């Protein structure tokens, strides 16, 4: 009886089901198979034996990872940079959006927006070229300017200190145009009668911004920030790999979880360490996204992811 119903359902839905198949199969092969392949983190991987054939080693890969002196560095850098990025991008893009909102000329508005948006179309490889034009220790413009000021040249790609400023700057430069447009779009949704009423009451511009515009953006700010916190373990690989040109002498301030996983896999062929770090990151990431989503749902269920 039930079987017949199932068969009837299938017949009724088979064309739609067929439409989903390419993506469903794709996702099975390239997402789900690797998910099961993640068991490699519990094995001593040998190329000739494959994932299934390699010997189980329990948690020893994780033990190596957690005993590694690099762990503190990459976790600190990943969390530290992402925290700074979240704060700076939030403040910066809301600030820019509020100023954009003050501009009445449609033409200038478009020009400013486009100029701030264009880095979005560039890859990190290209942005690394731009950074190199400034940071090249021999011919770079920054060192020339420093020497004009009577200061000594800096070997940028071998000095880790300045990178804690370069990274947030580069990240902001590339992303602020996009997030400012999101907040600007949010501001366009404010009912203009609020502003008119405030003006009639003689409210100062500052009052209008702090009492109407910014509070109106709170929900958007909250949601975007919480979602960003959900991905705090994922560093932007392009930024951290391309911009410092993978220079080992500055790893103390440029190495993050993702670059570490990549290097362990490709440069060192350390499959065990790399997969253990990858799996740890995936699990922490999953828990964090679930957690932050629960928070978002509490605040405003319309904005939760699921």
């Amino acid at each position, binding site marked *: 009886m039930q079987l017949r119903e199932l068969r009837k359902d299938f017949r009724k839905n088979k064309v739609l089901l067929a439409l989903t198949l390419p993506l469903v199969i794709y996702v099975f092969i390239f997402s789900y198979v690797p998910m099961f392949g993640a068991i490699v983190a519990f094995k001593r991987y040998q190329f000739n034996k494959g994932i299934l054939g390699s010997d189980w080693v329990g948690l020893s890969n994780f033990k190596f990872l957690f005993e590694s002196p690099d762990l503190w560095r990459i976790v600190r850098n990943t969390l530290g940079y992402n925290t700074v990025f979240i704060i700076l991008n939030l403040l910066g893009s809301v600030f820019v959006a509020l100023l954009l909102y003050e501009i009445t000329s449609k033409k200038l508005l478009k020009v400013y927006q486009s100029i701030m948006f264009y880095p979005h179309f560039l890859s990190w490889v290209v942005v690394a070229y731009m950074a190199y034009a400034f940071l090249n220790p021999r*011919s770079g413009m920054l060192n020339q300017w420093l020497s004009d000021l009577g200061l000594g040249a800096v070997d940028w790609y071998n000095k880790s200190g300045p990178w804690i400023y370069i990274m947030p700057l580069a990240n902001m430069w590339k992303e602020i145009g996009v997030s400012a447009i999101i907040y600007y779009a949010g501001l366009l949704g404010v009912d203009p009668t609020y502003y008119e009423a405030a003006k009639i009451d003689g409210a100062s511009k500052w009052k209008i911004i702090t009492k109407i515009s910014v509070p109106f953006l709170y929900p958007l700010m909250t949601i975007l920030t919480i979602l960003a916190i959900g991905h705090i373990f994922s560093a932007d690989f392009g930024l951290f790999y391309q911009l410092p040109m993978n220079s080992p002498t500055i790893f103390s301030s440029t190495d993050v979880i993702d670059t570490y996983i990549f290097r362990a896999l490709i440069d060192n062929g350390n499959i065990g360490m790399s*997969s253990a770090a990858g799996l740890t990151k995936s699990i922490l990431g999953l828990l964090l996204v679930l957690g932050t989503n629960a928070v978002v749902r509490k605040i405003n269920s319309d904005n939760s992811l699921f």
Partner: protein
Amino acid sequence: MVRIRSYRLSRLPIHLFFIAVSAVFIVPLWSIIAISLSNELDISNFGYHLIPKKIDFQAYHYIFDNPMTIVNAYKVTAITSVIGTLLSVIMISMCAYALSRSDFKYSKIITFYLFFTTLFSGGIVPFYILMTKFLHLQNTYAALIIPLLGNIWYMFLMRTFFKQLPDSLVESAKIDGAGELRIYITMIVPLSTPVLATVGLMQLLIYWNSWFNALLFIDKQSLYPLQYLLQVMMSNIQEILRNMTSGGQVDATMLANLPTESTRMAMCILAIAPMLFVFPFFQKYFAKGLTVGAVKG
């Protein structure tokens, strides 16, 4: 009336602020252009300058005299971008349409099945082993195309759009005797060009700018996409220039005289030029696509 606009923020400071910000955004791009137009000797004597001592097209001459390297990289990027974007839009839109239909029985389970992959991944190691050891895709176009094909977020973006189409559309077509496939191809697709274009452009941008899969899977120079060629050039310009010069027979003195610094930057300009000319016209589509974060799973 107590106070009449006692304090009004003048717009001039705002414009000054944006002019300063614009400079910060334009100077890096300008610096690449300036270096690419500089004389190699000037660069080694005086360093990079925002205004070249004298304009010199040496680097561009050099590239256009030995165009094979960049032409080839363009070819690889174009092939992967076009095939990848087309395949991915087809695959994504078919699935999104089926999942948008409220009468599709398996919608919930498939949605969850797809959505879960955005929450959890096996990580790069098993994926790398799958691609290289099982599927043997190193040094193939497939290695550049496949990893970026199935973008689940864009699938949800499309599904949201399809959901806004009136149900009566499909129902009336069904009454007229049209099959599901026909409804999708002759009715849904033509009605959905805005969202197909948005997702297509975003995928095109992703493919055009991708270098990560080349970094993982490609070591043959004939399969370097543009961005990866640039990345390799940064660390290994001499090697690339040697391969670039026709014949490959270059002695040391000649190599020393090659315009390495300016050529590198000229290559960068040639790689991003189409992007900077074409994509601004589609900026509104990208701005639309940004709402992807608001899409529910």
